[in-house]
């Protein structure tokens, strides 16, 4: 009895998480395609309308549809998160594998450089750089990714060291496998899952960081919709028009929750 409910819950929770993320993704795409969901189109006659059949999540102070803006904010988060993971995986993963495999002075050099990045106050650094190069989804994603490079690299490096010392890699060397093929086929195949597991964390960090930046006014330039920006915009109306703030906040939290839960499952499922 107990076991059955456990199993059902085991299947249900990830399914719900996937559903949340799928909805966010579909919404993000629809917001780009459907003119009814234009996140920028304002109805000047209808500012601060509460949620209703016409505007599911209500309208904001300018009369823009909060639902459309929330969906479009999802697109921003997806782009930023994808960029973060891409930069983290490629730069961090690459440096980590290189450091772990080469060791010696290469390792020390990479380690020192990563320490420098680690020593930078992340949010402040991103704020400074955003101020100087201008805000944009890809820029912000890449910056958050760069800030996360040390974490990716550390994981990739330790996974590489573990794999490198493992007997099956030694066995491959003894069997005459070329070193590059060993890196390619043996190490990367084993390092990738560990790094991929961290990508879930990176996605949540990216979404939250982008939100925080937008909230602080250093994020995506309005009128581009971003969850953090929407919350910041809606914050001033929280007593009178709470939907402006609450809708994106709820979707943001639900998305991060879903990614967190899926990440934990993924981490647990690996041998």
């Amino acid at each position, binding site marked *: 009895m107990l076991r059955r409910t456990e199993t059902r819950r085991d299947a249900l929770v990830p399914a719900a998480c996937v559903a949340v993320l799928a909805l966010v993704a579909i919404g993000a795409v629809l917001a780009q395609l459907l003119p009814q969901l234009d996140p920028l*189109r304002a109805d000047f006659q209808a500012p601060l309308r509460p949620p209703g059949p016409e505007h599911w999540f209500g309208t904001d*102070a300018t009369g*823009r549809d909060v639902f459309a803006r929330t969906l479009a904010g999802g697109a921003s988060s997806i782009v930023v998160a994808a960029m973060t993971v891409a930069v983290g995986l490629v730069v961090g993963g690459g440096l980590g594998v290189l450091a772990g495999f080469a060791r010696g002075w290469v390792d020390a050099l990479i380690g020192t450089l990563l320490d420098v990045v680690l020593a930078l106050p992340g949010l402040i650094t991103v704020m400074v750089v955003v*101020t100087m190069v201008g805000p944009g989804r890809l820029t912000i994603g890449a910056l958050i990714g760069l800030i996360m490079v040390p974490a990716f690299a550390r994981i990739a490096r330790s996974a590489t060291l573990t794999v490198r010392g493992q007997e099956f890699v030694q066995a491959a060397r003894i069997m005459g496998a070329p070193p590059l093929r060993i890196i390619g086929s043996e190490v990367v195949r084993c390092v990738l899952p560990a790094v991929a597991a961290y990508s879930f964390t990176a996605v949540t960090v990216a979404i939250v960081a982008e939100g925080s930046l937008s909230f602080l006014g250093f994020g995506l*330039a*309005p*009128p581009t919709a971003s969850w953090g920006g929407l919350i910041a915009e809606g914050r001033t109306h*929280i*007593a009178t028009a709470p939907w402006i703030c609450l809708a994106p906040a709820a979707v943001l939290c639900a998305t991060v929750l879903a990614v967190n839960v899926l990440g934990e499952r993924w981490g647990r499922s690996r041998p």
Partner: protein
Amino acid sequence: MLRRLAASALAAVTLTACGAPAAAPSGPSGPPVPGGTITIGINSEVSTLDPAANEIAAQATLVVAHALYEPLFTDGPGGALEPRLAESLTSEDLRTWTLSLRPGLTFSDGSPLDAQAVVDHVARLRDPESQCQCAQLAAEITDMAAADATTAEFTLAEPNAGFPRYFTRQLGMIASTTARADDGSPLGAGPYRLESAARGSSLTVVRSEHYQGTPGHADTLVFQFLPDTDSRYQSLASGAVDLAWIDTPNLIAQARGEGRIVAVANASTATAVLNTRTEPFDDIRVRQAVQAAIDREALLAVVDQGQGVVAEGPILSRSPYASGTRHPEFDPERARTLLAEVGEPVSFAYTTDSRPQSMQRATAIQQMLGDVGITMTIDVVDTATWGTRLYDGDFAAIEFVTSAYADTDAVLGIFAPDATGNFGGYANPEVGELVEQGRGSVDEAARREIYAEVAQRVVEDAPVLFFTESPAGFAAAPHIGGMPDLSDRNVISLLPSELWTAR
């Protein structure tokens, strides 16, 4: 002379002021209760109390200055000046001015504040070393001297009817040039003196025993630095502060709805400066098309939440010079016609900083212009970059929200060619001459007429787009008494000595 307008321009952005038709504030009934502490939430830190420092002269922080340095004059109803430390400032020719002080004034250490102290003060601020924005204004003074203990004479380079208004701000906030308080802070002659300052968080002042006017009601005033508008309002809501600076329309609306005492004035004008030197706005038809395509009523509704009024031109609706400028109507058809005449598709970038209302305004305008076929991109920059761009004329259109229009005498100067504040390079020599003529005109009626003409020309040439006059001011908890009715003012002038708390 035109420079001094520019002078207040950048600061004015951070000030943001101006009033809507508001119900008179109602506080606790009965006579003022003496004693107690009033905590006031303001929007930025005041780290330097010297009146030479510009940060103390912003509208939100002026309340601090008013506590420490009672100015010679303050802004009164309908643009009139109310004498405070001064008794009068008069001139026959608008060039030579005679200041007469109240007798027996002292600084808060008991040392005398005489006419020589005023002259010394002005001299100090006039020196560019002081880095006071008022240095530019004071530079108009070619000669000054103390005639006796309570009389000082000022001679200007050119006649200027707006000269007395200079003494409502820094030039009028007399600080001792010889003595300093025990803790090293500058000495003023205000109703309160500095008790303690906690960097970054608060400033505490207590009633000054040497103040010569009607003493303040409250024993102690605490100024809390709460930069975030919403946080500040929440602090008011939670009772952590008794009085808070509010400058967003929805909070003003909310404060009214929640029964707080609201003292606001339509002190700031939202405008956009168009760069008439370069394409596309070197073509007056494009400027007029843009002007016609923007629905100011809609902006008032969505950006200002209906708080405030539509701006009709460079003369504020409550200015003593108000004369009913005829601003072109919202007319998309006319815009399209004008554009058709131009022939080429119009596109431009609109520079703005990232404050929420600015963003909202920009996106609304973007949509309005889009509806008539003008492509407008929004270029969001931070305040520092915004200032640089404005100063360098590095923009096509740039948002400019300012309280400078509160001083009609001063502000019209920016429409003269080559004026420092003429950021968009608007070059209509006739307007320049008219402004000169008006400011030197001793006859007030004639001046009004000339100013009206200037305003009309400006509105028709559209070098600047006028959107709305927006309110800002203070909201107070119901137990705060002495809140002024600012609804008929152009400047937010809150005198802390008049405040009292019923608790």
